């Protein structure tokens, strides 16, 4: 059998048999404790600067960001963005519980369906799970409330992200996932798919020259909800209104 042949060849090369139990336990311990390595200093900043770094990095990678005070401001921000880009006001919406209380009726021209994305969708509105300031990266774990196709099929992806979920480094986001997520199937914390998205899709395959808009979205727009008083830019640090969106969940996330 191939498995035995491969493991046997590896052990012959390493000039040993299967690892003794104590060494296996040591390695299992390393897996369980998953020690961190060096984390670059660039993202270890006060909260307002960390969020500002996230925004700067999204923009550096050809994404766009608009900051809004609360979820109630999302319909207006979206409607204005779509109009400015000359895009239709119809979109596919992530069926995420965090979006339940958004007052869509404020902007009656916006129409949407809550489902996975289809090839004909031009605009998707996705729920951001976390933002990583180090590289301006959105972390989008799959699940019933965050279908993967919303990251891929539409030409324009708009992501609503709570500023409170922005962290400095990838490792901080993994630790939050380990703490908050439970996958019934595997007994672990990993959902089927996690996409880390940094800017809109692109290719440099033609003469090593960068062009935006390969197979994924051509535009990536982040609506950043300032739900974190500590993360507001200096001078703007008036506390946001209570997060009590009517009918909405008490806590961010899903």
């Amino acid at each position, binding site marked *: 059998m*191939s*498995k035995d042949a*491969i*493991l046997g*060849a*590896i*052990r*012959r*090369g*390493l*000039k040993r048999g*299967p690892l003794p139990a104590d060494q296996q336990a040591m*390695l299992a311990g*390393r*897996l369980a404790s998953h*020690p*961190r*390595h*060096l984390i*670059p*200093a660039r993202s270890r900043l006060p909260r307002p600067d960390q969020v500002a770094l996230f925004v700067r990095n999204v923009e550096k*990678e050809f994404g766009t960001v608009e900051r809004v005070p609360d979820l109630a401001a999302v319909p207006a921000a979206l409607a204005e963005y779509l109009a400015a880009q000359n895009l239709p006001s119809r979109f596919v919406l992530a069926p995420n519980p965090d979006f339940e209380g958004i007052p869509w009726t404020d902007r009656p021209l916006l129409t949407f369906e809550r489902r996975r994305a289809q*090839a004909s969708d031009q605009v998707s509105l996705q729920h951001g799970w976390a933002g990583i300031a*180090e*590289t301006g990266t959105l972390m989008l774990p*799959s*699940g*019933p409330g965050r*279908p*993967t*196709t919303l990251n891929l*099929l539409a030409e324009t992806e708009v992501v609503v992200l709570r500023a409170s979920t922005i962290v400095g*480094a990838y*490792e901080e986001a*993994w630790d939050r996932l380990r703490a908050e997520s439970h*996958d019934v*199937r*595997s007994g*672990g914390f*990993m*959902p*089927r*798919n*996690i*996409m880390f998205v*940094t800017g809109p*899709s*692109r*290719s*440099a*395959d*033609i*003469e*090593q*020259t960068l*062009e935006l*808009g*390969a*197979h*994924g979205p051509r535009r990536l727009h982040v609506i950043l909800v300032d739900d974190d008083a500590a993360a507001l830019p200096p001078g703007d640090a008036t506390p946001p209104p209570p997060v009590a969106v009517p009918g909405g969940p008490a806590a961010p996330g899903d």
Partner: protein
Amino acid sequence: MVAITSPAFKENAARALADPGLQKALGTAKGAFLQRRAQAVANLPEFEQLRNIGRDIKNHTLANLDFYLEAYESKVKAAGGQVHWCSTADDARAAVLEICRKAGARTVTKGKSMISEELGINAHLEAHGIRPVETDLGEYILQLRQEHPSHIIAPAFHLNREDWEADFRRLHTDLPPDRVFHERRDILAEARTKLREKFLAADVGITGANFLIAETGSSVIVTNEGNGDLTQTLPRVHIALASIEKVVPTLEDACNMLRLLARSATGQDFSVYTTFSTGARREGDLDGPDEYHVVLVDNGRSNMIGTEFQEMLRCIRCAACMNHCPVYGAVGGHAYGWVYPGPMGSVLTPSLVGIEKTGLLPNASTFCGRCESVCPVKIPLPGMMRHWREREFERHLTPAAQRTNIGLWAWFARRPTVYRWATRAAIGALGLLGRGKGAFHSLPLAGGWTKGRDLPVPEPGGTFMARYAKARRGQRV
């Protein structure tokens, strides 16, 4: 497996040097990757430390590879996936075909994968009535042209914009033949439209894997186009092809490698899409494949463990070595004659297919050392090429004339006095012969050298050793 033309490296290289289209493409691309990498590295002061950590993570994993592969497999199974262990390319091709057949597949979309090239997956599927469609932009045009990649991250490195336009006109015959491509992005848009239909129609999606994670049973792909994600999300079945050395222990280990990968490869801080796939669709998910398979391939790698080539298994396929290689930059990737070109290929190819057919590759290096100096996991590539030259010599595979010359040189090198006397005489003679010329355009018995370049006439003043001795005597006074 892909046909090998490495024994004809010299002819391949001569043809490449005389190919104006290729030389134009190499000239256009030259420098772009280098500048972007240098900028990305300059922007991250910790880069050098991350390289050392990356090297250590990979060394630790290789020293315990059996343990981590089994740990990885158990996590894949727990997440509803299957691992197919394959010793050889034949096993891997058979495993892929069987999964596709069980799925009743007629078309298969593919993300960019060098291991797929190594295994010759496309030809095998085609031979059995299944249509593979490459979806990475560069791979897509190469499939249209029936060519192989000439670079491991930029497969169409050898093509110019005119080639793209001509091929698209020739092969997308349903579109108006007089359409105009104003910009590169018009070419991209046409490919996007064409491939969208394929993504939606495919029954199986095949991707590679940049990393496998033992802690979680995840496979990781890194792309900029999003084609890999469409490939692994839309069809009913996802197959990840991965070789055994792709495994790392934890997500934290993977993060360290990811901080190195994009910067070393394209000079980006992070690629656009870095995606972790763990098992099949979960209860309540609205999308994603119902089946998740990992075809785990050895194909000669386990034989490298415990040899002087073990460190080559640290390679994360970033292509920095070939981007910085003067030989690759002059002849391009096809001249190397197999799947993996450039310095990493010159070490890996002999390990995987044997030194008998590939002896010229480790010799196609000036040992300038740039590859090692940019390698994110510090693989001593020139040292390993030297090991291959030694093995080639020991096994009497080196051509007779070269062996005689090396033998002759070794005889002199072991006798310093004779060596100095002989070099002094030779330099004196050459100096006399070439007085006033500056350089020799041809020399008897050295036609092989002077055919491609001039030999400078030695300057007056004797050998280096003579001048050194003279300078020291001068200092003592």
